[in-house]
């Protein structure tokens, strides 16, 4: 009967233990990561009685069980990694978006807007210093805006390294903690204990780690949980590895496993977010902003370099950009233009330099052929110095300096020459002979011809191939230069002039006494040039004037050559024909300036060109001709932009874009015009048109629409990261709930348990007292 006491005791013990567990559960109601524990009760081993039957000996608490769902825990860990990454991504994107400061007046969109606005305003009064100052100030705001964006994005990018370091430190703490717990759990459970609360702690630690990096857990039978972080084993039983943040070969941040040194391919968690921000959106954004700044510099400067400042043509100019001494010989002038380290590429093309006589306003334009692969900076300086009244050299800092003689100015504008016949090649007061054959000319053999000026004796002029730099094909302007030199050497009052790609000879004497005749000699150079022979051209009492108005609106560069195709007096003789030819020799039209022609009537040639042919007479026999350069782009080589000669912006990208020092020092240097008068806004019109122009460098976008696209993309990304964070958080909440639903403590449940165990306890106690009474009965039986 005595075992009955034990049965009761066991029942009481089991009930007490159960109640204590309920107490533990209730006490941990709010403990994060706590899993409720449950006592598993079973009946005790039965007793074998005589007669072959068994009798139970009460109840035992066999195990205290943690109620967990291992697979759910794994899912939570994964989700935690996704959530951590989304959190970092969102924080980073919000920061990036905040830096843009859109929409608002301080954002780049507002700044560009103001800049073009003040350009538009300046157009209405281009001479106003206040408006010029405002335009330059607004340009400065744009450049400051770019600099600030570049600087802040770069620092955002560099900031991630210390952040990664911090997170790696956190990860290491967790890894070590997990390893320590593993060791304890293994030793405890080897002794048959249930390390439930240590397991809870370990699970919480793994969960924290999973927020940093993607984690996989392998549970072993000995109770150890081995942890793989981003595919690398970082916790194995009681040993934990160390992670380190380091710079990779390309300068990017990496996370490595300390002992093996191999880089982790982190895909989830906050670390993944940080590493992704460094390699993902930011460089792309910086690149696009850089592209925008580059396009702004390139296109604005293309326009500005070919304009004319407020006070007319420039008298001296220094390039903003300098050459790099690539071959390290201490000289800057021997670098090829393509290898001189300029921020923008020099293309093969032409540069037209206009030299103006500041007194008369007469313009002489020279075409320089630019070939970046064979031309050095020094060659360019020489070519510019070769132009009359200009001097250029490369200074010790590698910059190109151009200076004009006193009384002369220069610019690179493609404006129409207002008086194209001022040299007197078309019905001028001086005798002239014009060539009917276009260049370039083949002058590869020695040649000679004779000229007689003003009725004087014929002088022989010889030409040898060594006279020319270009060989064998000599362009008209070079030939004219060489011939003029030879005429001067022979003391002849004669000048050679390039008319388009043709040649004309003009006597320096004027009036009816002026005369000119040419005779062909060896090699028949005159025939090759189309210069009329057997004709004595004579001067006139007064020369014919040609006036050109308007600005060329057509495409492409070239010239229009006007040739007398009959002789006579303008406006008087029945038919006086002038043929107009394009550069390629095709005929544009024929104009009749004979009877009925009013010298005050504009002859409209299309593309914005109006020509006035004034009074006078022209001669077909003398080859009267003149040419009007029609330039849509007076610098097709971009050499001005590359060198920063009369540029608006300097620099090459978002980080170093700035308004050119020249403009900051003197707002008058803003090349608003094409003609050179104070109120002339011809160039500003081109600049303003830039706003609406789609640019090749920006993938067919305008400056503003490109930037809007960038800002909207940042908006989309930020929005996406927000939405992602929301959905990850919701999912996380769902999983946490799920876990809570399984492992969480429910007070009602615990109350019920409490009552159950209380009643069991009371009943067992009652059972013992009953047994006790029964024992009393037995003891008192013998009395």
């Amino acid at each position: 009967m005595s075992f009955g006491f034990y049965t009761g005791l066991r029942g009481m013990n089991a009930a007490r233990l159960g109640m204590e567990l309920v107490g533990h559960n209730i006490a941990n109601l709010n403990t994060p990561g706590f899993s409720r524990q449950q006592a598993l009760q079973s009946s005790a081993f039965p007793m074998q009685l005589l007669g072959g039957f068994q009798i139970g000996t009460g109840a035992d608490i066999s195990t205290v069980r943690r109620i967990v769902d291992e697979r759910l825990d794994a899912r939570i860990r994964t989700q935690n990694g996704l959530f951590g990454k989304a959190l970092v991504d969102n924080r980073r994107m919000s920061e990036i978006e905040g830096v843009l400061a859109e929409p608002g007046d301080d954002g780049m969109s507002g700044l560009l807007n103001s800049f073009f606005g003040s350009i538009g305003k300046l157009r209405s009064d281009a001479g106003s210093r206040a408006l010029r100052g405002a335009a330059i100030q607004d340009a400065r705001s744009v450049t400051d805006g770019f600099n600030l964006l570049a600087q802040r994005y770069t620092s955002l990018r560099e900031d991630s390294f210390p952040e990664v370091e911090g997170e790696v430190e956190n990860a290491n703490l967790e890894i070590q903690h997990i390893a320590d717990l593993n060791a304890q759990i293994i030793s405890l459970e080897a002794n048959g204990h249930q390390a439930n609360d240590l397991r809870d702690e370990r699970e919480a630690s793994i969960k924290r780690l999973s927020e940093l990096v993607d984690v996989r857990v392998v549970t072993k039978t000995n109770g150890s949980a081995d942890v793989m972080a981003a595919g690398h084993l970082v916790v194995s039983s009681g040993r934990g590895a160390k992670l380190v943040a380091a710079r990779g070969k390309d300068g990017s941040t990496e996370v490595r496993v300390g002992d093996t040194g191999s880089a982790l391919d982190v895909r989830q968690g906050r670390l993944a977010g940080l590493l992704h921000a460094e390699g993902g959106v930011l460089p792309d954004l910086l690149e696009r902003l850089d592209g925008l700044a580059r396009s702004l510099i390139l296109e604005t400067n293309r326009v500005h370099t070919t304009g004319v400042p407020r006070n007319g043509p420039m008298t001296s100019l220094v390039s903003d950009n300098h050459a790099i001494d690539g071959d390290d010989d201490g000289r800057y002038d021997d670098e090829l233009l393509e290898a001189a380290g300029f921020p923008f590429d020099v293309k093969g093309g032409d540069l037209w330099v206009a030299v103006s006589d500041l007194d008369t306003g007469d313009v002489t334009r020279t075409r320089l052929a630019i070939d970046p692969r064979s031309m050095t900076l020094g060659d360019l300086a020489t070519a510019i110095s070769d132009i009359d009244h200009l001097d250029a050299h490369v200074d010790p800092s590698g910059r190109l300096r151009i200076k004009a003689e006193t009384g002369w100015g220069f610019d690179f504008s493609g404006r129409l020459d207002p008086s194209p016949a001022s040299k007197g090649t078309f019905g001028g007061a001086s005798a002239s002979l014009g060539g009917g054959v276009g260049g370039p000319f083949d002058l590869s053999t020695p040649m000679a011809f004779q000229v007689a000026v003003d009725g004087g004796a014929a002088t022989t002029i010889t030409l040898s191939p060594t006279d020319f730099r270009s060989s064998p094909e000599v362009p008209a302007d070079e030939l004219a230069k060489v011939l003029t030199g030879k005429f001067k050497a022979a003391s002849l009052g004669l000048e050679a002039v390039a008319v388009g790609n043709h040649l004309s000879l003009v006597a320096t004497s004027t009036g009816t006494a002026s005369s000119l005749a040419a005779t062909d000699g060896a090699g028949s150079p005159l025939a090759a040039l189309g210069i009329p022979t057997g004709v004595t051209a004579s001067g006139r009492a007064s020369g014919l004037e040609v006036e050109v108005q308007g600005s060329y609106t057509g495409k492409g560069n070239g010239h229009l050559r006007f040739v007398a195709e009959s002789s006579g007096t303008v406006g008087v003789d029945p038919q006086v024909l002038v043929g107009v030819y394009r550069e390629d020799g095709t005929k544009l039209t024929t104009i009749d300036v004979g009877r009925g022609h009013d010298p005050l009537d504009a002859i409209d040639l299309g593309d914005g060109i109006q020509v006035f042919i004034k009074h006078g007479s022209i001669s077909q026999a003398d080859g009267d001709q003149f040419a009007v350069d029609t330039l849509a782009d007076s610098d097709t080589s971009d050499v001005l932009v590359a060198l920063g000669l009369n540029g608006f912006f300097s620099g090459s990208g978002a980080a170093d874009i700035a308004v050119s020092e020249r403009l900051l020092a003197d707002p008058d240097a803003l090349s608003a015009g094409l003609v050179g008068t104070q109120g002339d806004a011809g160039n500003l019109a081109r600049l303003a048109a830039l706003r609406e122009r789609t640019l090749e460098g920006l993938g067919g976008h305008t400056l503003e629409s490109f930037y809007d696209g960038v800002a909207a993309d940042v908006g989309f990304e930020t929005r996406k990261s927000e939405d992602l964070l929301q959905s990850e958080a919701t999912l996380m909440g769902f999983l946490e709930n799920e876990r809570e639903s399984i492992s969480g403590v429910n007070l009602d449940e615990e109350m019920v348990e409490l009552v159950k165990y209380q009643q069991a306890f009371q009943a067992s106690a009652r059972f013992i007292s009953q047994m006790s009474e029964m024992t009393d009965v037995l003891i008192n039986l013998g009395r």
Partner: protein
Amino acid sequence: MGLRITQAMSANRALFDLTRNALRLQQTREQLSTGRRINRPSDDPVTFLRMQPKRNEKQLVALFQDNAHLAGDVLGLAASSMEDAVQVLSRAKELAVQGANGTMGEADRRLLGKTARQLVTEMLALGNGKLGDRYLFSGTATGTMPFEMVSDASGTFVRYHGDDNPVTVEIAAGVEVDVTSSGRSMFLPGARTRTSFEGATGARPGVGTDSGRGLHTLSVEWTGLSGLPAGLSAGTTPATILGDHAWTITAGPPDTISIDGGPQAQPIWHRRRVQVQVGTTGETVSLRRSATRRRARRPARCAPRPHELGRKELDGDRLRGNEPAGRHASTGAMLNVDSTGILRSRAGAGQLRRTYDAFNVLASPGRDAREP
């Protein structure tokens, strides 16, 4: 959600929902306080992208508005200058009529000359009108004073220093309006084609030679049979001398002239022409300005300008009709002022079309009166 509901679950849920609501509330508050629905691109990227061009456009429209205001100011000022110029011209006209009176004595003429000089100065001030620090009538050379009175050996005249390019402003996309025009086209429509005259005596009592050169068209009808001046052809069909033609007017006493060495004759003044009687048989040379063909859009550049015949300036143009002409009975000096061609242009800018060189018209009588 599983079967079990725990206390923590309810608490978490409530917190989650409260947080979400607080977030929404914050967004709404932000919209309320900024007055904008989109405060950053991520608020609504699609609308942001659609909104940006509108923002740019709005700014552009503001610029166009500014420009239109500016154009209004400048053109208004130019128009009032033109109205004033019309006043000056009509006063000059009165003066001319007054001066064409043969009974006026020398002192009266001097006085008249002084008044005329005053008018020239006034006209000059109008031509040099400014808005702020920019000249209205100097084309794009807005910092250069457009008109200057110059005296040299050949006389006193007004010179133009501006250029012929207009300053334009954009008042709508692609719509450009000229705000300042070339002063030349406003005040000196004929200046580009000015005929130069040389000589010393004019058609005054006494003998001398004047010659004119430049752009002018004369139709000459010759009804006589002899005494044809050089350069003129006979017949009833008008011959044309266009420009660059020098001829000589010889004035003989009293009130006779001869052209290019032809016989001396007394000119007979008609409304539209001058007839010069040649010889005694009654043949006359008739000088008449022929209309030149011109194209649309261009203001008349060689519009008729009045000058006194035979003083220093002879111009076929002046022979055009309608202008009030005054001729001094004894000296033959002529004064002509025409104000019939003054128009207001459609754009609101006052423009003098088909009218005379406003300055040099006025300059002449003053000088004339000064020299007895």
